[in-house]
């Protein structure tokens, strides 16, 4: 890919981000509830104190002005102070981000590792019992709501059978000093295998809950494209060459069948972001998703704005990444 194309793509990001910021601003302004009132809670303060507080947060200015102030500051990398934490939003978010990335990556890996083999198997055993079970399973996978499925898993694996922990990222006894923020890496860096294992156990249920809809979708995509590819002349020709069945299936068929799967996977990874908010809330996972949900309830405007902006950047980035992957897998396409 040429540098020109890259710059073009980056420039396309600008209107997207402006639009997202504007929508979030308007939505937050339209949402009933006043951050100042929420902060005051049951306390009694004078109207002067309340006014001072409001002025301190910049909420005395009209919304249009606030919008442009936010844009100006954001362009300089300043996303303001979190109302609730009284610290820079960027700091609060970057503390929580590794937990979310870790969970999402594990969910993605779980989805890819289960969906692709199952999809291939369903395709080569088309109409078998396995194929039919897989079809029903994937239908369930996309339709079961995450909050319900997550609670079901907690009930079974944590409450009923005591195999896995109920919530959180790691047990108190296993906590290790932060290095990267990724617990799977940090525990290993400290050479603390029991802590690593504890972190893995905490990851299993949320990762399965988060990855389930994606697994279901990717399995269907893989099955469909594999069936399509198996009908192609080049698969017959590969057979006519006397190649092993493994080579025909995996080198000739799967390489082509994965083109749509990988593209969908890259785009669906963006939808993990939305799923994170629910799954992190259900499993008490101290990540960005839960932070955003809490911040919406607290009307913590600056944090929500910055987080949504970050989601938009990640989403656009993933789409861009999907395009690049597509050209790598499919030699006929040039960006």
């Amino acid at each position, binding site marked *: 890919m040429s540098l020109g194309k890259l710059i073009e793509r980056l420039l396309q990001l600008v209107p997207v981000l402006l639009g997202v910021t504007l929508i979030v601003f308007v939505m937050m302004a339209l949402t009933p509830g006043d951050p100042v009132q929420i902060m005051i809670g049951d306390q009694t303060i004078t109207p002067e104190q309340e006014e001072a507080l409001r002025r301190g947060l910049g909420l005395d200015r009209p919304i249009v002005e606030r919008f442009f102030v936010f844009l100006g500051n954001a362009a300089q990398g300043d996303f303001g102070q979190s109302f609730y934490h009284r610290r820079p939003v960027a700091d609060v978010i970057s503390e929580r981000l590794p937990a979310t990335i870790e969970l999402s990556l594990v969910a993605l890996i779980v989805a890819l590792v289960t969906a692709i083999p199952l999809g291939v198997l369903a395709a080569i055993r088309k109409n078998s019992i396995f194929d039919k079970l897989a079809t029903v399973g994937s239908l369930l996978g996309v339709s079961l709501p995450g909050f319900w499925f997550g609670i079901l898993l907690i009930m079974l694996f944590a409450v009923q059978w005591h195999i896995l922990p109920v919530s959180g990222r790691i047990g108190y006894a296993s906590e290790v000093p932060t290095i990267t923020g990724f617990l799977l890496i940090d525990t290993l860096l400290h050479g603390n295998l029991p802590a690593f294992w504890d972190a893995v156990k905490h990851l299993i249920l949320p990762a399965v809950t988060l990855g389930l809809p994606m697994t279901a979708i990717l399995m269907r995509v893989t099955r469909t494209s594999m069936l399509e590819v198996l009908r192609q*002349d080049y698969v017959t*020709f590969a057979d006519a060459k*006397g*190649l092993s069945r493994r080579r025909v299936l995996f080198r000739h068929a799967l390489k*082509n069948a994965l083109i749509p799967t990988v593209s969908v996977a890259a785009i669906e990874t963006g939808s993990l972001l939305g799923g994170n908010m629910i799954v992190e809330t259900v499993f008490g996972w101290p990540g960005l998703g839960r932070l955003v949900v809490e911040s919406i309830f607290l009307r913590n405007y600056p944090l929500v704005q910055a987080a949504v902006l970050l989601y938009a950047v990640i989403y656009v980035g993933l789409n861009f990444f999907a395009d690049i992957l597509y050209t790598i897998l499919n030699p006929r396409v040039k960006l």
Partner: protein
Amino acid sequence: MSALLEVRGLRTVFHTRAGEVWAVDGVDVEVRRGECLGIVGESGSGKSVTFASVMGLVRSPGRVAEGQIVFEGRDLRALSAREMRAVRGKEIAMTMQDALTALNPALTVGEQIREALEAHDETLPARGQARRAAIRAKSVEMLGLVGIPSAESRLRQYPHEFSGGMRQRIMIAIALACRPKLLIADEPTTALDVTIQAQVLELITDIRARLGMSVVLITHDLGVVAEHCDRVMVMYAGQVVESGPTEDVIASPRHPYTRGLLASIPRPGLRGQPIKPIEGQVPDLIGMPPQCRFYSRCPLRRDACLAPVAMRPAGEGRSARCVLLDEVPA
């Protein structure tokens, strides 16, 4: 010349929603060493399915139901899947109608030649640099054989980077990489421009002579058969209706269908005269009565045609499936 491939009583059926379709219904084929056998027929006559059956490439819902497929004394139908893979590509190779769809778009041309060599070529060094070098040398040699210039650098390219004629040559190179004894060329020219068609056919004829292999040329073009084939077999609705030396069959066809085919070819000598198509349609193969299958379209049909019609001798090395041969001395 002894027979390299002998097919007896082959029946291949497709189970469809509408019923069983006997796409190949009692076909006998003999391919002799070193010869070029032409298989002629319309779409749906069973010519491609016959040879897909020989290669063991008939897929569900199709199935080879009956018959013997004897290649160099071995019945291929009795072989295991693994043994059959050792025959495919090594002993019997196949090219397909359209190289654009037959070559894998996601793999380089080099890899697609290499994997054929790796699957079958036992003369290659076992491993390492020597093996890679030998494979490379053979790949370049094969591309050279089919007339692709600067083969060395083109091995790294993908099929879409070649022209249609070049792709056809590459497919032939892949098929011939392991020096098969029999090449089944399924409609090798149908997808090509006329000028390229002649080149590809010349190439096949030329390589056949050089490698001493047999070729089965599946086509619907009698002109191609006349020019390149020693013998010809005409198929209609899943059966062979006439076979014999090409010159004899073309000079004096014995089956009304062959006659009809010949009459429907435009010829420069008969300019201005209308060409005569065969009236009617190929019959539906589902629930076909056991009569002559050409009955409904035959200008010479009679009551005797309503009984099953077997192949009959029709002169030196010739046979045809027509009751008229009983009336007129052959």
